[in-house]
Each structure stands twice: as structure tokens, then as C-alpha cells.
């Protein structure tokens, strides 16, 4: 128990004194995972809506593939992205392995299926007659899609939160494609792994607590927006 209390105390200390290293790591986590979430939101919500609304052969197969993708193991994603980005790999010319950009790509690959999957469920959960109703009122297809997305905004926000939660807490892919380079690609999760390896358990716990706080803050804001709307 002692170590755990020390960890909480140290987290508090690091936050209050605005420790520059911890601050930098925290901001980088936010920046990388925020960007990945944004990308996955754009790709996931649009493709999820498309899959949910369109009728095509093999739709069930596609949906179950996406649902499987929601559980993509981050290390596997990390391994594939690393191999693609190797100097001598197909995208080696980009020279982005072991950079924050590579981490954003890997995290986006993890988050896109999560956002897509929940989006599909959300759109399919809307009353089936709603589409006909909207169309019969003279809306164009684009207008109809827009209205449906507005109608499903609460679960769509949940999709974004799930995507963010998935990537901010992820370590396997980040450490592989980012390399945990000090001041460059070291984020909260990879720093926690390293400090555990170094035996600095208090610091590792402190970083973990800061990570939880960060996730709580971000999803808190989203939840407030979401729940306020619901009350009406």
C-alpha cells in the first residue's frame, strides 16, 4: 500500500509543481491521441454512416469485420505499421518511423474501427421509418444523412469517447512505432512502462494517475455536452 500512496502523492506533487518533463509528456499524449481521435472521428463516422445506411451484398460480413476490428490488438497494429514504415519498407521514403506522426497513424488505425462500429450501431438503432419520413418531407439525400447524424449525436459522441479512450490508454503500438524517445515520442503510457522497467514504481503509478485524470477530464467534457442535451 505504501508504494501506492507514494505514487498518489508524487502524482499530486508533479502536477502542482508543473514538472516540465511530465508536462511535456502529458501534452504530447494529448496531442497525439487527440489527433488520432479526430482522424478516426472523420473517417469512422462517415464510413460508419455509409455502411449503416447503404444496402449492399455482404453487408453483414462487412459489419462483423468492423466489429472484430474494434478489438484489434494494439501490438499487432504496431507491428504492421512499423513494418510498413521501415526505411526499407513500402513507405520508408516518408521517414516517419519513430516520430509522433507514426504514432498518430497507428492510433488512428486502432480507433477507426471502434468509432465506425459504434456509429453503425447508432445509425441502425434509429427508427427505421425516420428515413422515409425525412425523404417524404422533400429533403435531399445529403440533408437526410445530416438529419440522421444529428438525431444520433448522443451515441456518436459515445463513439468518439470510446475511440479516444482506446488510444490514450494504448501502449503496445505507441512504443513500437514511436520508440519512447525522450522529449519526442515519449507519452504517458510508454513512460509508465519504462519507469516500471526501471523499478521507479512510484513514478510509474504517478504517471498512471495523471493518465487517468486526463482521460477523465476529456471524456468528462464530452459527457457533459452529451448529458445536457439528453435532459431536454
Amino acid at each position, binding site marked *: 500500500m505504501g508504494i501506492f500512496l507514494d505514487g498518489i502523492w508524487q502524482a499530486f506533487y508533479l502536477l502542482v509543481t508543473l514538472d516540465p518533463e511530465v508536462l511535456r509528456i502529458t*501534452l*504530447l499524449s494529448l*496531442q497525439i491521441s*487527440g*489527433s488520432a481521435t*479526430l482522424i478516426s472521428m472523420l473517417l469512422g463516422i462517415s464510413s460508419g454512416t455509409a455502411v449503416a445506411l447503404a444496402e449492399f451484398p455482404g453487408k453483414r460480413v462487412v459489419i462483423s469485420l468492423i466489429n472484430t476490428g474494434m478489438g484489434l490488438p494494439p501490438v499487432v497494429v504496431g507491428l504492421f505499421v512499423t513494418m510498413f514504415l*521501415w*526505411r*526499407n519498407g513500402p513507405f*520508408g521514403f516518408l521517414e516517419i518511423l*519513430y*516520430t*509522433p*506522426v507514426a504514432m498518430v497513424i497507428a492510433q488512428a488505425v486502432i480507433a477507426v474501427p471502434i468509432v465506425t462500429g459504434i456509429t453503425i450501431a447508432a445509425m441502425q438503432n434509429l427508427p427505421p421509418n425516420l428515413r422515409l419520413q425525412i425523404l417524404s418531407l422533400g429533403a435531399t439525400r445529403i440533408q437526410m444523412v445530416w438529419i440522421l447524424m*444529428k438525431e444520433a*449525436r448522443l451515441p456518436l*459522441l459515445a463513439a468518439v469517447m470510446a475511440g479516444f479512450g482506446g488510444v490514450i490508454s494504448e501502449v503496445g503500438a505507441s512504443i513500437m512505432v514511436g*520508440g*519512447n*524517445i*525522450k*522529449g*519526442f*515520442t515519449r507519452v504517458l503510457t510508454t513512460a509508465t512502462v*519504462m519507469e*516500471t*522497467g*526501471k*523499478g521507479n*514504481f512510484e513514478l510509474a503509478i504517478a504517471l498512471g494517475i495523471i493518465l487517468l485524470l486526463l482521460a477523465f477530464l476529456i471524456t468528462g*467534457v*464530452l459527457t457533459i*455536452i452529451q448529458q*445536457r*442535451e439528453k435532459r431536454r
Partner: protein
Amino acid sequence: MDCNRKITAFLIVAMALLAGSWGASPAAAQKVKSVILATTTSTQDTGLLDVLIPIFEKKTGFMVKTIAVGSGQAMAMGRKGEADVLLVHSPDDEKAFMKAGFGARRRLVMHNDFIIVGPAADPAKIKGTKKSADALKKIAKSESLFVSRGDNSGTHAKEKNLWKAAAVKAEGQKWYQQTGLGMGQTLAVAAEKKGYTLADRGTYLALKKKLGLDILVEGDAKLLNIYHVIELNGKKFPKVNVAGGTAFADFMVAKETQKIIKTFGVEKFGSPLFFPDAGKRVESLGK
């Protein structure tokens, strides 16, 4: 629909902040030429690289990307030309690596030694045993738990050699467990399970306080832990940053760096973690 407006506002603010942050920070570092250093975990876990790398970066203007994995994985990266310079401690594999033409130059940097650590109760009664082979035989005979790295790291390679020298087939035995983790974590597992393990002295000293494991066997010439720096062969791998790799290798064997290595850890642990050896011959070590 003012909720929609709120969501939109939130998104716009988030996007603006993110865009701003990308413009401001680490992306700028990309313009600097980087050197990929593939190394063993012990150089990072002891904190040595945290001291040396900022000095190197300041001096040369290169940015070092340290990828701390086991020596085995570091050399695997080298064999694919995915690193510019290696700092490793697995001499037999290194020789094969050089022979195959992957490296351009291999230089001695420093050494410390491996130790066999275990619980103070010492169920196999190995404390004070002079020869590592005898100690391992005793562990095997008493079937006491031995925790192995099992990750093809330099330490694991050394450990396999020691078992071979002791003529014991440890792999597959019930009392022999492989963690597949780094040195620090493997030490923690050994401490938790009250098992024996082979560790490099640097990592052990750095973690000693939290472990409750004692040094039981040390000083055998077979237990030397030798670190070399290897520059990659630019002729074989045209994409390798030869200038950067050479600069780092030169830096590791430079006089001032060697001086820092010599005193590193003395203040914190009471004894040095590494002994600088640049320019010496491997055969002269440990005498």
C-alpha cells in the same frame, strides 16, 4: 439546436488547438538529422543514456532516437539496416554480425559484470561459489526456481552460454521460467517469486533497494559483461545515416565520455555501474 452548436464549437476549438500544437512543437525537430540508436535495455534502465545523449546532441547537432530493446532485437534491426548505430553486449552474436558484413566497425566501450542474484535464504546454497558453472549445477540439482529473461537479449545469450558450460539443460524444466521481459522487470519477478536470476550489475544496483535480492555469485571471469558500439555498414545499407552513426560511436569512445561513464552512478549507488574500456583489448578485461 444549440447543442449542435456546442459540439461544433468544441470540435473547432479542439482542432485549432491540435493544429497549433503540431505547428509549434516536436514536428520542428524533424528537420534535424536523426541517428537511430538500437541498444540494450540496461543502458536505458540504468539511466546512463539519459546522461550521455543530451551531451552528444548538443555537441553534434544530431538528434538521437534511442530504441531500447534487447541486444538480440537491436542486432535484428541492424541486420535490416533499420538502425544507424548499435550499443550492445552480446559478443558472440556481435562477431557473427560483423562477419556477415552488416557492421562497418565494432569498438569496445565499457564493461561491468553479470551476477547471480537470489533470495537471502539461498535454497540451493550457492552463496560464495567461485565458479558460475558450479552455482548453476547446484540450482539445477536442488531444482530451485531460476527466472530467465528468455528474450534473446545479451543477458539471455550469456545465461545460455553459462548453462552450456555447466552442462545443464535448463530449458523445459519445471524450475526454469522465462519472463520474456527486460532486466528490471525480470529482477522484479525473481524477487517476487524468490527465485534466482542472472543480472547485469548496473541494472541490479539501480534497482537494489526495491528488490530484496542478494548477490550470491560474482567475480567469475565468465561473468564479464562487455559492451561494444557498432557502426552499420553504409555500403550494404544505403539508407543508413553513416555520418550520424560514426559520430555517435566516436562519441562513445571519446575521452570525455569515458570519463563520464567512469563516474556514472558513484554518487547514487556508491560504486560505478560501468567501467570504461575504450582502446583496450577484450582479453585484458577483468584482470
